[in-house]
């Protein structure tokens, strides 16, 4: 047996902008075990629910993460609306769906850029983020913010989109779709990219289900599970099909995310075509009393929201299970047996969001 040594990975690492720490137990260059430790960006946001009233907390919930911010606000609002027996107007549901799908595009393009950066393909990284910038401009136009949107409220949304904005989003989506083709082709067909991703970190469907993988990580292993099928917001009116792949390796995870970007384009167009006229919010009176549980499909996977209220304006408990929390156990399984040089790439393929995980 070769001599074992422990190499610390992170919390500051050139590949990942976020602080995750792993102790890698190595035998020569092969990882035999990875021990994670998190807690470097814990901010106690769940505890804040006891100090801020339930309407103020919308703004805090969306600051859990900079990429999934819209989804966090949406999940929290839907929980409180469920407790209070309030239903957001249909137009608000459609607007939420459009923003949610735009978030998915922006998250996946960000991930593609990070992947290209990890591969050392700087030009591809720049191209991915150039396309992402167009979606951020649309967020800026419609919500007033590029990352933090502050448009969700209990009972609907705060800002409407006029027909000009909807047309502009539609045009931008067409433009990104056209420009994404050579970028996507490079990720999926280029020999150098393929040589790094093909066959790396294979996760079987049984292991993915057994270890609780979610999102693209689960679907890349061939499990057709997508929380959008539950029909929250306006997803019930749209045709959502889970995007799956069968290989379960890093290339399959990349492929699923790229195909999900195209799916999001289709859903945005469909939502714009079907969006009804009407109010964007209903008035909410009183305080919530009861508890609710909600699951939504964030770009990185299924996120679970739990709210417990006691009849006052301060909630008893807000709990959030983020997709990265679920994807860490399968990630550790993938790391076992891989080469040290592939560790960064494998961590990246789960699309980790440490900021969400630690809240």
């Amino acid at each position, binding site marked *: 047996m070769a001599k074992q040594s422990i190499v610390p990975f992170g919390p500051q690492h050139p590949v990942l902008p976020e602080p995750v720490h792993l102790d890698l137990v190595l035998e020569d260059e092969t990882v035999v075990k990875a021990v994670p430790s998190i807690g470097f960006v814990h901010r106690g946001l769940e505890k804040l629910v006891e100090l801020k009233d339930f309407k103020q907390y919308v703004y805090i919930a969306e600051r859990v993460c900079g990429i999934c911010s819209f989804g966090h606000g949406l999940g929290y609002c839907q929980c409180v609306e469920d407790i209070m027996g309030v239903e957001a107007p249909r137009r608000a549901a459609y607007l939420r769906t459009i923003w949610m799908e735009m978030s998915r595009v922006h998250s996946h393009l960000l991930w593609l850029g990070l992947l290209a950066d990890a591969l050392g393909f700087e030009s591809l990284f720049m191209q991915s983020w150039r396309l992402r910038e167009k979606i951020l401009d649309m967020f800026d136009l419609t919500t007033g913010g590029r990352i*933090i949107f502050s448009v969700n409220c209990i009972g609907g949304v705060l800002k409407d989109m006029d027909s000009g904005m909807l047309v502009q989003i539609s045009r931008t989506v067409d433009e990104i779709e056209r420009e994404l083709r*050579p970028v996507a082709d490079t990720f999926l067909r280029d020999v150098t990219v*393929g040589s790094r991703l093909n066959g790396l970190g294979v996760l079987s469907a049984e292991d993915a289900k057994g270890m609780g993988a979610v999102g693209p990580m689960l679907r890349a292993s061939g499990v057709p599970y997508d929380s959008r099928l539950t029909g929250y917001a306006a997803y019930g009116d749209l045709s959502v099909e889970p995007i799956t792949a069968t290989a379960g390796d890093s290339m399959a995870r990349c492929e699923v995310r790229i195909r999900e970007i195209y799916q999001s384009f289709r859903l945005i167009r469909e939502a714009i075509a079907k969006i009804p006229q009407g109010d964007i919010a209903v008035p909410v009176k009183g305080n919530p009393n009861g508890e609710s549980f909600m699951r939504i499909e964030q770009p990185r996977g299924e996120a679970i929201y739990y709210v417990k209220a006691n009849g006052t304006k301060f909630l008893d408990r807000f709990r959030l299970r983020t997709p990265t929390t679920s994807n860490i156990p399968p990630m550790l399984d993938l790391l076992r047996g891989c080469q040290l040089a592939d560790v960064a790439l494998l961590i990246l393929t789960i699309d980790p969001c440490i900021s969400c995980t630690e809240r």
Partner: protein
Amino acid sequence: MDQWKFTPFLHTALKNLFSRPDTVAYPFKPAVYPDRMRGHVVIQIEDCISCGLCARSCPPGALRVDRAAGTWTISRFDCVQCGSCVNACPKKCLAIVPGYTTPDGEKHTETFTRPPKPDAAPAQPKPAAAPAQPKPAAAPEQAQ
């Protein structure tokens, strides 16, 4: 391997060499903000009634309202531009406008004072105001 390509990115890379930059040449060209951009909070202090709803709705606690002095104070460093105060204001005298505030090396606050109303000015020298003053002073005496 027939599906694999050796240079699928070549066309994009060559195009990049001869295309203009995609970024804005700031600060040589001005930054353009959309109308809805949440830059900073401004107040129309003349319309403020010092109700304090904005301060109560502010998640980071960046606002302070002094009803007696007629002041509205904002800590620019604490403000997160969420717009909660703008939605809460009953007089609609608050607004979020495009453009960022200038950066600074230390925390500071900005205070706006409501100007006295023109018709309220002659009310100050009323003789009735004089006997009203000892009343608060009398209350602590009773308490003692």
